[in-house]
């Protein structure tokens, strides 16, 4: 008896052959950029340059050009830092965790998701550097053997843990990403003509590490991928847990919370997937990847967003419950102040963007619409930025002694640096989309239902 399992929706549309895939993936690298790319690149580069100017101004003049004050010593700087770090979480989750769970749909998106991770971590890493009063001494936060006497870093400080967590995460992500890229670089190398573009050919030859596609290479490739996936998986959880400890280990009501590590990790995945969606929906248009990034991919991610969004909502409510249940008046006031104090609008933005709006994904029509998903993903990005703003600024601005209570208002420099990192992020991503194989084609080819599907389509004709 012939039993055929239910047909899953295909992850690659358009009856692609292996060669089609190769051609499609290599096209953005080999061809010329279209109009959209140039417009986006121009915009991003402009924002980036503005950000550089604002950073230069800050370092040249002092942190005083920001809106921070004696009570709210961290504001947009650390908000942006945590936001970017959070965004950097989806990539590794997609490539590592989903690899371990054998989720084949990750193959269409893992390359770009991971590129996004790395670029987001670059943005994030900027902030701890420039938020320092004396950034030229930033190397002091590394345990570098020195001749200053007995000076050493303070291993008690969560900021130091941050340094290790982020640098580890960044390096593992880069290595993992690069390993995946090798066969694809080799593919581009092989297609390059050494007479027409000798420089490019040389470049991709170096980048592809002498990959020849032998069985031994493939075997090692698979093994290393699995090992790195195993290494990267705990990092997905550790990085944001440690970032959350910047707050959780403090004494400030609203920061001093034991649920922060899981809460932050969930929030990070939530925001990471939203940013992946924002990017991919743009990218599939700009570099013509409609066949590889399908509505199916989007739907799967929407389900994750719905799930993590609901968990984040649960965390918000747990926080409120714990504040009430603790009986600590400072804790209670901190949360009451979040919801009803002068920053109620930030809390409302957070609640609506992160908890309520993603609930729309219960509706299949919305879940499977590119436009709706794009809009909702923007909402989530905004909501998650506000979450960090709420945690940082509204906790600080009214803490223990009312005599020190004040407010925070950003300056143009605060805004300029934030926009600058968005510009920098998109600049990097757009450059990447023109020089890197944006889809892991070697892996993708393993899920092309070539023979069976083709046979079926042909037999129906």
């Amino acid at each position, binding site marked *: 008896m012939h039993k055929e399992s239910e047909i899953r929706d295909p992850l690659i549309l358009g009856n692609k052959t292996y060669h089609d895939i190769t051609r499609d993936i290599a096209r953005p690298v080999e061809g010329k950029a279209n109009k959209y790319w140039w417009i986006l690149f121009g915009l991003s580069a402009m924002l980036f340059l503005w950000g550089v100017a604002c950073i230069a101004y800050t370092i040249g003049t002092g942190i005083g050009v920001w809106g921070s004050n004696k*009570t709210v010593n*961290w504001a947009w700087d650390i908000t942006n830092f945590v936001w970017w770090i959070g965004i950097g979480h989806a990539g590794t989750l997609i490539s590592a965790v989903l690899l371990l769970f054998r989720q084949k749909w990750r193959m269409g998106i893992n390359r770009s998701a991971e590129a996004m991770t790395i670029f987001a971590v670059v943005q994030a890493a900027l902030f701890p550097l420039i938020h320092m*009063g004396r950034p030229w001494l930033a190397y002091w936060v590394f345990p570098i053997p020195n001749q200053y006497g007995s000076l050493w870093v*303070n291993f008690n400080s969560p900021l130091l843990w941050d340094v290790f967590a982020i640098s580890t995460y960044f390096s593992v992500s880069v290595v993992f990403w690069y390993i995946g890229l090798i066969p694809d670089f080799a593919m581009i190398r092989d297609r390059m003509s050494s007479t027409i573009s000798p420089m490019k050919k040389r470049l991709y030859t170096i980048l592809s590490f002498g990959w020849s596609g032998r069985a031994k290479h493939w075997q090692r490739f698979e093994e290393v991928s699995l090992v790195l996936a195993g290494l990267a998986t705990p990092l997905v959880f550790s990085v944001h847990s440690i970032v959350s400890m910047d707050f959780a280990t403090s004494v400030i009501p609203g920061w001093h919370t034991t649920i922060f590590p899981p809460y932050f990790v969930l929030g990070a995945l939530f925001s990471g997937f939203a940013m992946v969606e924002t990017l991919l929906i743009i990218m599939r248009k700009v570099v013509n990847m409609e066949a590889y990034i399908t509505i199916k991919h989007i739907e799967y991610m929407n389900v994750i967003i719905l799930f993590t969004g609901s968990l984040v909502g649960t965390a918000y409510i747990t926080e409120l419950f714990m504040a009430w249940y603790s009986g600590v*008046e400072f804790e209670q006031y901190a949360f009451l102040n979040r919801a009803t104090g002068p920053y109620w609008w930030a809390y409302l933005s957070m609640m609506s963007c992160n908890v309520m709006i993603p609930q729309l994904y219960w509706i299949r029509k919305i879940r499977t619409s590119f436009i709706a998903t794009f809009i909702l993903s923007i909402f989530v990005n905004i909501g998650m930025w506000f979450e960090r703003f709420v945690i940082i600024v509204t906790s600080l601005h009214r803490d*223990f002694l009312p005599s020190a209570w004040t*407010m*925070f208002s950003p300056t143009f420099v605060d805004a300029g640096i934030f926009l600058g990192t968005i510009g920098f992020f998109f600049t990097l991503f757009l450059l990447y989309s023109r020089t890197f194989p944006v889809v892991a084609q070697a892996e993708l080819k393993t899920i092309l239902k070539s023979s069976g599907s083709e046979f079926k389509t042909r037999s129906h004709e």
Partner: protein
Amino acid sequence: MKTTKKYWKGLAQLNNDPIVENLAQNEFVEQLPVDEFLGDQENLSSTSSSRRDFLKFLGFSTAAATLAACETPIVKSIPYLVKPDEIIPGVANYYASTIYDGRDYASVLVKTREGRPIKIENNATYSNSRVQASVLSLYDSARLKHPLKDSKETNWRTVDLEIKEKLEAVNDGKIALLTSTIISPSTENLIKDFSKKYNNVEHVMLDSTPYDGVLNANMDSFGIRLAPTYSFDKANVIVSFGADFLANWMENEYATDYVKGRNPKSGRMSKHYQIETNLSLSGANADNRMQIKPSEQGFLISSLYDGIQGKTFDKRLSSIVKVLQSNLSKSIVISNSNDKNVQLIINAINQKLGNYNSTISINKPTNLKQGNANKLDNLLSDMKAGNIGAIITYNVNPSYSLAKATEFNEALKNVKLKISTSLYNDETASLMDYVCPDHHNLESWGDANPKYGKYSLMQPTISPLFNTRQFQESLLVWTSRSDYFSYLKEFWINKGVNWNKSLHDGFFDLKENKLKLKRFVDQSQSIKSKKSNTIELEIYETIALGDGCQSNNPWLQELPDPITRACWDNYLTISATTAKELGLSNWNVSNGALNGSLVDITADNLVIRDVPVMISPGQALSTVGMAVGYGRTKAGKAGNNVGFNAFPFLNTKSVTITKVEGKYEFASIQLHHTMMGRDIVKETTLAEYIKDPSSGNHRETYATYKGKLPSDQVSLYEEHDLETGHFWNLSIDLSSCIGCGECVISCQAENNVPVVGKEEVRKSRDMHWMRIDRYFSSDMTKELSKKEKLSAIDMFSEMEDPSEKPEVVFQPVMCQHCNHAPCETVCPVAATTHSNEGLNQMTYNRCVGTRYCANNCPYKVRRFNWFQYSDNDKFDFNMNDDYGKMVLNPDVVVRSRGVIEKCSMCIQKIQELKLNAKKSGQPIKDADAQTACASSCSTNAIVFGDSNNKDSEVWRLRNDERAYDLLDHLNVKPSVFYQTKIRNKA
């Protein structure tokens, strides 16, 4: 002698030859041979320097010029050729001296380092913030640097010659000497000598805030035109009608006595009633406070007199009358009224209660206030009539501080010879023909007799910074003598004073003849109650600026007002209800900063436009308050155009207020005014305290497996070893702290705390290492909310509004030096660490400026250097000024941009103390251990010491039942602790 001599360069010029004119027009006598040079191709092509050579030369010279410009700045540091014996670099010298600027008097010790005075310490008396800050005024580069004639620089020779000549020529009128109250016996003598030489001298004394009411009433009652001394420590009951005796009224010394009389430990605590219009510092400390309109004061005082005589009286005073009658001869009743009749009633009340010779000593009067308004009026009319031939002013600024300043300025035009001896080319001096700038107190010799039998001496602690001359020296020169120092020394030696010892001590007592007093006769006339429906005005002085003579002192400008907590401004204080009626409001903008509405104030023919309104709890309904001392126009860059001048309204009773469009931006250090129901300032009443000394001092407990334990006994962490060596502790008594802010200035001077300016304070970036939090009570309490079943949201939002009749508490907060410090664990580079003596230390060099420590500080006492505050034109205060920088304490580093700073518990003083003890081989004496705040505190509210020394005061205080840690539930184990506030109320 007119000269007609003419000099000429050549015969052509002598003969007025046109060629001279032609040549003068042409820079080059001959045409430059440019064409010739460039046209000679042959020569050019054969020259050895090619185009490349030219570029080489150009490049070299540019590079050389650039390199030559890159020179390290030269800081001149000149060693002593012959080192003075008393100066050892690095070791401070102290000189006993006196500060008196015509308003504030203090006997002080001046700390000098390498010949520079850098700090004022208290000596025989306590001082105030203005005295503390006067050391910075010494280095004010806005001071006059040479004598002026018609506003132009000149020299003393010219000035003296001309002045003497002109003074002798005055024969058609009097020579007026307009001075502040003179308390210097030798100066009085000098003025007598001066009068003898020019026998038509009229000496008029002037107090910027007049006390004629008190003085004239005493003249009538006792036959002396002086104010009595008050012993607030001996009084059981203090009733003050508007007199802010803890801050600015009459003398600066009352606070010390006042707090001595309020010692709950001894069980004796005076009961203080304050009946006033504005919420003053005294009102804020009072046990009972009543808000009245200024026009009611006379009637109430009269009614009080009726009451204690057993007649019918106003019911509002019933408890006061009762308590006064049961404390005969143990009370003080005072009033700030400048009405002689009101003061006569006050005298009658005190006489009736038997307070004279008990708590009030009229036979030992104070000399600090002697201004005479009648004499001043006569002088003004004489000036107008042209009867004044010359005027010399000293220590006064009448063109600014007189209510009739415009009249004075007008009348001044009729005076032929006008001389000022001001330190500054101020509002008055700039109208004068000659300005003969006086020395600063710290550059001067002098003496003072502040009160009966008490004397102090003033000695210079630095050689004059500028080409100035002491007023007394000028008087001597103008009477053809010289050398005030010899004069002064001789003056006192002739009186049998041990000059060397007195100069060393700074003060001495003299036996004086008993004053002849008139027998007291009650001359008071009762005052009827009268209703007024107008808005009434009460003028006050702020604790920072007083009458504004030190307006150009940025420390004082940035010292927040103890009540409103705003700095760099004066404003119209108004109650919330009255403000609402007039449509006025205060509101916070997005960064929290305070804004206020603007009004025009008019009264009779006076008007001030665009005055900002500050809503002040405790202000009586339908009244407004305004501070003098602001609105200077010729004070210097820090003091000019800060606020508005309220002196023209000095004698104004009622005003009209009209709202005008626009808003005003305040710089307020504290934006939230209530404790929000939190246990921050713990307080109790005297009766409760006597029953249980630990009343009100509830400790947070935690449930553990051992049962409920106080928070400090529950810990997960290893303890620092605090038993060995020293354990530096600071105790702050909230009952003794009156909130005056002297410690803030003292700390600023000791620790080189920068001034950041109004804009930065507005952004909540003040840099003070210690602040005095002021909390108002709210009408909403947790109990009330429970009773009314309010939701938490409603409760907290109502708690944010201070009561309109608030109780006030002051709480000095500096780094608490936690022994489980939240800041220490979070610093990634270990820039803030714990000492084994209980101190939380900050290593500026190591700080990278993450500000995590500041966020994690529950007390928010850490300050970040948002900008470079020294040598930065954007912060053009004393640290951007070569003179202003001379005040810096060389023992304390000036912090750079990007690092955190905070209270170090004056680690430099501790270190000095330890080194001295080590050298002398003696254990540290408890009294020697001082921080800047503790040593300057007039009320001894701040006590510093070693808690491991069981004989120390601070150890005793640590174990007092009243001692508590701020935010004790956090269990951060501070080295700073507080004593509960105790009010003497039912």
